[in-house]
């Protein structure tokens, strides 16, 4: 599967996080496992999925909470890994994609709010207007996810090919410790959070 097709699958899966159904098919564990299997890097997908799942588990998606998108982070990291990039670069780029996606989603939500009154007026007269608005909103959101993931995959691929191997030790060391400590930080975070609340 090509990176573009994998990003398209990620864009569809991510819809489940907020817009469609909330079956948690968008959770990082599932996204990582599926994209890993599709791109032929099942172990990498599993690892990134589990790590981003643990790191995001204590962020409750209540109200308008938008810390970062862990599904996009896990999916993007897995797609980058399928291109042969080192794990530390995949992890850092995945985390960046997750943060970038949440900023784009915040903008999208505000934009929807600004057109809400006009939509409500039209919907009072014709119920089908709402259906069309829902469809447009879903399509736009999927396109936004695809664009964010695709852009980060492209940039990370270029960084890997042209710069990463010659990057200063400072950068490589920081990225390496960040990615290698992530599973343990994730597990300890869930443990501390659970102990405090039980």
């Amino acid at each position: 599967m090509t990176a573009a097709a994998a990003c398209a699958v990620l864009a569809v899966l991510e819809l489940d996080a907020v817009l469609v159904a909330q079956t948690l098919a968008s959770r990082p564990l599932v996204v990582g496992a599926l994209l890993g299997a599709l791109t032929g890097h099942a172990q990498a997908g599993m690892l990134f999925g589990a790590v981003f799942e643990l790191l995001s588990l204590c962020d409750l998606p209540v109200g308008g909470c938008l810390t970062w998108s862990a599904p996009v982070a896990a999916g993007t990291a897995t797609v980058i890994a399928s291109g042969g990039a080192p794990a530390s670069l995949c992890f850092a780029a995945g985390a960046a994609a997750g943060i970038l996606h949440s900023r784009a989603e915040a903008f999208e939500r505000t934009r929807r709010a600004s057109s809400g009154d006009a939509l409500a007026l039209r919907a009072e007269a014709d119920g089908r207007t709402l259906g069309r608005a829902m469809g447009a909103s879903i399509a736009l959101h999927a396109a936004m996810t695809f664009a964010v993931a695709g852009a980060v995959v492209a940039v990370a691929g270029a960084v890997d090919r042209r710069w990463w191997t010659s990057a200063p030790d400072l950068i490589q060391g920081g990225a390496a410790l960040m990615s290698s400590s992530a599973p343990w930080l994730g597990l300890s975070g869930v443990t501390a959070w659970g102990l405090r609340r039980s």
Partner: protein
Amino acid sequence: MSELVMTPGMKARIAGRLLLLQARWDTARMQGSGFAYALDPWLAACWAAEPEALAAARRRHLEYFNTHPIAAWIVAGAVCRQEAAAAALSGPARDAAIARIRSLKTGLAASLAGLYDSFFWGALRPASALAGILAAQAAYHAGSTRAPAWAAATALLVYNAPAFAARAYGLRRGLAEGERAVLELTRLPVQAWILALRRATVAGAMASFAVGAGLLGGGDRLTAALTFAAGLILTWRGVSPLAQLGFAGLGGMAAAAVGLWP
């Protein structure tokens, strides 16, 4: 006028649309547009003979609405029941019934949100994730090449079996009994379930750490234990996971600068 009765086809239509409750989530109305979209076929049936009343019904459901996506199903059931009752009335009795719909909707949404958030987001979601991760670790130790598939399937099943049952139960009971269905919910020992799930999550996280760290060599195992301990302290002090990752990155850079890492 006699009260309209909801057919199985109509229930399925509303259920399908409730899955799109947050498809146009925005910062002003939150789930308002999605809730109005979900109810629209029923509103059109109830108020078919009165176009102005139908427009007013759509208007009142396009307003701000926010609750847990699964709690919305029981609220939708209760509201549909009340809309049918209001449409069958006339004069001041109808006005009173319509005024009651608005207070019923906001009251139920607010009171159920905390309960459903605590159970589904705050207890079942973490527990199902840990179940998935432990299933993958068990499959890996058993030599299975399908550990990722086990992780995904376990996590999805543990979360969705109760979640879809609660959705179906909520819509059905809300339609049949209105707000009395919510009283039934308050009699369930939900707090005890939440506590049990959170304890299971903590036990699962510790077991997962033990299994994961057990695969490492001496030095790496010590590093994992120290990182785990540091994460416990930082989380306890309210430092977010992203900030902890930032500290780890800075620590790695500092260690690389003095030649200690990688």
